[in-house]
């Protein structure tokens, strides 16, 4: 128990003194996960909407596969990305291994299925509501997808926040493809793993508390932004 209090105290001092190492890894955590989130959303949200409006032959199979991929262990994703980006792998010449870019790639792969699945589930319900009207209005598939994405944006926000949560707390994949290099690819989660390995539980917990606080801050910030945008109309 004393470790918890020590961790809280240490977290407090790290934040109050704006410890430069802490600021650096926190910003890198945000940079990696927010980039991954943006790319993942660009892929997953339209894909989720497409799955909701379009009936095709292997649709159920595709949905089942995506739901299964949600449970993919990050370590496996990390290994796969490592094999591709390694100097001996197919994309080795690009020299991306052990860079933030490699970490972003791994996180995109981890969170795309999650966001797609949640987006599809909520847009499917919206589509059931809109189906007759949009068909009657003679909309194109593209117009249907755009309409669902826009009118379902609150549910999609939840989907992207779930993706953010999974990304920011992920350690297995980015440890492998990022390498936890000090001042280059170290982020909050890999630093926590490192400190735990050293037995520095208090510092590890302190970083953990900061991670939690960061996740909460980002969630609140995004909700606040979305509220000002819709301006109390709803």
């Amino acid at each position, binding site marked *: 128990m004393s470790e918890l209090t020590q961790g809280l105290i240490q977290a407090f001092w790290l934040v109050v003194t704006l410890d430069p190492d802490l600021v650096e890894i926190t910003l890198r955590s945000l940079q990696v996960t927010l980039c991954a989130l943006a790319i993942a959303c660009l892929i997953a949200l339209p894909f989720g909407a497409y799955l909701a409006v379009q009936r095709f032959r292997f649709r159920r199979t595709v949905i089942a596969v995506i739901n299964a991929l949600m449970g993919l262990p990050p370590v496996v994703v990390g290994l796969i990305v490592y094999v591709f980006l390694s100097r001996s792998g197919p994309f080795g010449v690009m020299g991306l291994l052990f860079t933030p870019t490699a970490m972003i790639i791994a996180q995109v792969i981890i969170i795309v299925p999650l966001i797609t699945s949640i987006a599809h589930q909520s847009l499917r319900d*919206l589509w059931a*509501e*809109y189906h*007759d*009207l949009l*068909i*009657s*209005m*003679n*909309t194109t598939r593209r*117009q249907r997808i755009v*309409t669902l994405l826009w*009118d*379902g944006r609150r549910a999609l926000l939840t989907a992207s926040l779930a993706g953010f949560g999974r990304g920011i707390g992920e350690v297995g994949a980015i440890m492998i493809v990022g390498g936890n290099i000090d001042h280059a690819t170290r982020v909050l989660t890999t630093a926590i793993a490192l400190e735990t390995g050293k037995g520095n539980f208090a510092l590890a917990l302190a970083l953990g508390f900061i991670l939690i606080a960061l996740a909460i801050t980002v969630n609140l910030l995004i909700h606040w932004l979305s509220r000002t945008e819709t301006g109390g*109309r*709803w």
Partner: protein
Amino acid sequence: MVSALFPLQAIGATVRRKDKTLVGPVDLALGAEGITIVIGPNGAGKTSLLKMLHGIVRLSAGQVTWACTTPEAQARQAFVFQTPVMLRRSVLENLIYPLRLAGMPKAQAIAQAKDWAARIGMAEATSRSALVLSGGERQKLALARALIRAPDVLFLDEPCASLDGRAMREIEALLEQANQEGTRIIMSTHDMGQARRLATEVVFILQGKIHEFEPAGDFFASPVTAKAAAFLKGDIID
């Protein structure tokens, strides 16, 4: 202006879901003018008939043809559902939506939408969410949204099923005006008073088949079949 869509022709048109025939086979030819009212007991297939003619359910057999190509015809129709579907947007945005689909510039679309909001008495409510409107307001908004692109033909599926007298009067006025401005109206109702007020011709449907198709005056004065006469008298028929 006489629409280029008509005559509308249905030949042996049938809609089946699983083994059950919802409507058909239907043979029907509709001319370019007037208000066609579809009546018949519950479950007779009124909704299915309208959706089939509108082309939003797939035909199991037969065909429905317009005087022009089907894509052209589809772009010039609108449909008002019994339970209006509200987009999760403001009143104004609901009205803008079909205009923007058709590629109208934003400023023009907003002006036109505001105009229509005024016509349905909702000029003050344009920024409210469509989801908080009353039943009557929703149906008026759905009707305005359908009429805003001045469709050649408007289908309505019992639009006044759960409305009070005032809302019904407003909607009927809008329909008659639209008809005068050249929109062909094809509407189902179970309200015989409404049918008598609006119809220029009547389709009487029973068990998915067209039982009688007459000019309104003839139908209400002297229905040909015994079933239609019984229905008009208020008897339960099937």
